[in-house]
């Protein structure tokens, strides 16, 4: 009996935002991220028979997405990237400087903090997955997508007072989850 089973009916609601956040931090283009996430779900569906159930659904989908992202960069590099590198380092004066330019600057903490931000973003989405679906949707719309209170109330047919109760529950649960999964590490 496999540990995990696939339930494609829940994929979009459960993992679309997580996979999108994973992708957008790596490709920095919303349209490309949308496409890659879509391709991931479609590929997942096609290769569902290969799922052994050893990893969780999300881990399995992320592994497919990683390959999609790599393929995306391969496509870009096969046309544009190589030409640019050759042009940059064929000039007489700058020849030989390329190695120095590529040595990591020990005072540059951008790379590390960027990596940490990516992981934190995923940790937040991981915690959001644990919330009831409606609560998570409302929290995302209000906090991440910056929708007006009125617009959300109309969308979900709830009062402003209800919205704040939902937001309060979501924030409390999220803070507790992040305490457990992020800050205690």
């Amino acid at each position, binding site marked *: 009996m496999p540990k995990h089973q696939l339930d494609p009916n829940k994929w979009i609601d459960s993992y*679309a935002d997580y996979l999108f*956040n994973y992708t957008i931090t790596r490709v920095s283009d919303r349209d490309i991220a*949308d496409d890659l996430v879509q391709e991931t779900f*479609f590929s997942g569906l*096609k290769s569902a028979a290969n799922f052994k159930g050893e990893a969780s659904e999300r881990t399995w989908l992320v592994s497919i997405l990683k390959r999609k992202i790599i393929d995306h960069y391969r496509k870009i590099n096969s046309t544009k990237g190589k030409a640019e590198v050759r042009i940059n380092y064929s000039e007489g004066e700058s020849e030989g400087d390329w190695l120095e330019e590529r040595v990591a600057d020990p005072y540059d903490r951008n790379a590390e903090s960027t990596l940490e931000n990516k992981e934190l973003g995923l940790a937040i989405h991981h915690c959001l997955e644990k919330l009831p679906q409606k609560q998570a949707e409302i929290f995302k719309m209000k906090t*991440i997508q910056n929708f007006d*209170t009125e617009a959300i109330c109309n969308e979900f047919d709830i009062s402003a007072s209800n919205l704040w109760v939902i937001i309060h529950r979501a924030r409390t649960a999220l*803070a507790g989850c992040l305490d457990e999964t992020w800050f205690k590490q």
Partner: protein
Amino acid sequence: MKVGKNTLFINCDEAKYICDKSQYNESTWWERFRLNLRYIYCTITRAYVKRNEKLSELVTDQKVDCMENKSKADLKSKFEQELKKHQ
């Protein structure tokens, strides 16, 4: 949750409610004033405010992103069509 408009002193639950609204800049100055007043003497409120502000900072400053609703709806309908083919 409704906060009494005329009372200067609010309870902990009201303070949390105002604090949540403040994270989205949707509290009034009068609400913030009463929250700040309670903040001075209530350790539970202080802890909640601190934790809540930290959460806002994490979610907004770290650029947590999610798919736009329209894109997600489009994806959902395409995926459902594809799913029917496989069932």
